[in-house]
């Protein structure tokens, strides 16, 4: 970080600084990350017993379980994203800084993205081990799908997190607002990774990948543009 009064960072520089601040806070407490990871592991274990393993092979179950867990554990991190700024009116300090509102949003989204990918890094191997899914060749494909899914999820989730903290229902509202938006993401990610795990060629799930990419492009743009409307005073 440069000394006070030297340079004002541009939009992306400022976004990086804000993301770094959030990640530093999270690294010191690890509260949200640990709870999201523990939640993911618990959910993976509970889901396994919700099906009859003699009727449904666990490899067919795994992709669905993975993306449902991933979505719900992400919500835990997204909830904290703006709740932390709400306490002690820290957000006012951010808003007073000479950076654009879009930069604040992108910085928040970036730190949430790192958070969500971090949860994935634990959840994907955990599901692979617990459900006996041979990841070897499929691993990179799943990682790629996970990244694409995380971008859209984080864009929408960050925006709604910013809105939810200012409402009377606070974190209760976030799942209600964001889950309908996660439907296309979960569907596309689960369908694509099921096909990857079954060793099918790319053309078999190209449509789902394109859907994810389009979702990311549309909602990263829309949410970045919409964010300033949610904070103006």
């Amino acid at each position: 970080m440069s000394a006070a009064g030297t340079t004002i960072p541009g939009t992306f520089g400022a976004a990086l600084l804000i993301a770094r601040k959030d990640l530093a806070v999270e690294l010191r407490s690890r509260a949200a990350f640990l709870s999201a990871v523990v939640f993911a592991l618990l959910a993976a274990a509970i889901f396994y017993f919700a099906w009859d393993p003699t009727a449904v092979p666990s490899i067919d179950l795994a992709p669905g379980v993975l993306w449902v867990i991933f979505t719900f554990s992400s919500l835990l991190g997204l909830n904290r994203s703006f709740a932390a700024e709400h306490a002690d009116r820290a957000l006012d300090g951010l808003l007073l800084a000479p950076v654009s509102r879009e930069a604040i949003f992108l910085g928040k989204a970036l730190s949430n993205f790192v958070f969500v990918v971090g949860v994935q890094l634990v959840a994907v191997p955990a599901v692979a081990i617990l459900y006996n899914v041979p990841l070897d060749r499929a691993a990179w494909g799943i990682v790629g799908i996970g990244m694409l899914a995380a971008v859209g999820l984080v864009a929408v989730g960050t925006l709604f997190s910013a809105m939810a903290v200012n409402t009377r229902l606070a974190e209760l509202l976030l799942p209600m607002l964001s889950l309908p938006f996660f439907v296309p993401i979960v569907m596309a990610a689960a369908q694509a990774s099921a096909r990857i795990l079954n060793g099918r060629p790319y053309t078999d799930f190209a449509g789902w990948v394109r859907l994810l990419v389009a979702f990311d492009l549309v909602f990263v743009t829309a949410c970045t543009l919409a964010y300033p409307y949610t904070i103006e005073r």
Partner: protein
Amino acid sequence: MRQKRLFDAFFGVAVLAVMATFVRAAYFTPVEARQGPAQKIFYIHAPAAFVALYVAFGLMAVSSALYLWLRDEKLDRLAASSAEVGLVFTTVVLVTGPIWGRTVWGAWWTWDARLTLTLFLWLIIVGYLVLRSAVDDRALRARYAAVLAILAALLIPFIHLSVYLFRTLHPQPIVLKPSAPSLPPEMLVTFLMALASFALLFLAFLRARYRLATAQDVVTGADG
């Protein structure tokens, strides 16, 4: 300022029109050969879906976008009113659909593109109304609601696209299609009557709800 009445002659006309449609649909429209009397639910289901999905939801999205641009409180009230009345019509669609589906398809529900879309639209509108009820500041509430409505409008094609890959029991359009409608003339007339009377009923509800919103804003403060 004198309070305008919520239910007036216009409302009465709309209710009478819907009743006339039902009488015609029940007694003066031929029974469909294969589906029997069950097909009569079409005259509630399809016009309600049309009004909810196109008129109410479209109005909500457009007036929300215009609100962020023009910042006129009337547009926010219009968006909120069409969301609430639209929710009623979407509920009608979601209740009549399974009843019809159970008789004709043998299944209450199927995860086809349109059914799923309608269900999520319903959930989004509920979320929209809950969001509105959870914000006290009027300007903030209007902006949040508008942002959600615009994002929801962007979401619709994605849900449609993603569910489209799971094909489908729901009939393809039989009235709104490029070639001539494949409905027999008597049924088509009843359907168009149903469409018109449902649209009229929607407008009547919308007007009443809008007047209520105005009255609420006058009571709760600031400007009138």
